[in-house]
């Protein structure tokens, strides 16, 4: 909670850039309201998981950016090739990621990289729509899954 409060306060100070008492008061007020709303929505139910994962996120992002660039190139070539050689498939991906936060990261990572979109996620099984067979095969090799699993702490 304190982490979020700190982030919100720093964000407000950086963004407004005006340090009058009224504006600062408004900032403090909106930080507290946001915190309250987040708590009501159950945002902090997973905070212990989140604290353990957050330090390993930047490394994962770097890898994800590489993957995004690669798959963007593939999709761009697909779009621009005159015969439009797409070959859509829907695959089921079993995942070893157990916790909700990890599953969210996995699903969003899959959607984020062009060529694959998560359609549904249900009890360690994801339904993924892929633009062509190659991206489906790459997905089923399960490197994303392994990477996200290694984000999770052993339990």
């Amino acid at each position: 909670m304190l982490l979020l409060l700190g982030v919100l306060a720093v964000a407000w100070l950086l963004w407004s850039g005006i340090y009058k008492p009224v504006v600062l008061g408004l900032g403090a007020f909106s930080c507290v309201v946001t915190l309250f709303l987040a708590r009501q929505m159950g945002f902090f139910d997973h905070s212990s998981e989140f604290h353990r994962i957050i330090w390993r996120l930047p490394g994962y992002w770097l890898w994800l950016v590489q993957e995004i660039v690669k798959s963007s190139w593939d999709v761009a070539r697909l779009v621009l090739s005159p015969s439009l050689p797409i070959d859509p498939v829907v695959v089921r991906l079993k995942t070893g990621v157990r916790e909700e936060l990890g599953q969210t990261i996995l699903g969003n990572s899959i959607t984020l990289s062009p060529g694959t979109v998560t359609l549904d996620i249900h009890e360690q099984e994801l339904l993924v729509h892929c633009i062509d067979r190659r991206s489906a095969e790459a997905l089923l090799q399960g490197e994303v899954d392994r990477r996200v699993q290694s984000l999770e702490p052993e339990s």
Partner: protein
Amino acid sequence: MMLVVDILSWILMLVGALSVLIGGIGVLRMPDFYSRMHAASLTDTMATLALFTGMMLQAGLTLATVKLFAIMLFLLLTGPTATYALANAALTSGLKPRVSVPESPENVQ
């Protein structure tokens, strides 16, 4: 040194602009809803990454860079959530994805 940074940021911004263009062309060319979404995600992610990195290089080590980075992060975090919501809504409302002949039945639905 300035020139190198400039050239790098121009390249990145050009790549971003091209991604937007290709994404747009893709949305028009693709045959069905789900494959259109793939083309749109090109605009969503690659363009965001390239354009914002290019702009950050232009801004240098200033407050603007921090803000640009934050905007990029928010876009990248919320984009896939929106795409997922869209795809899931389409799936639950019964729009079947157009699928070519399945190869192995245990993997392909």
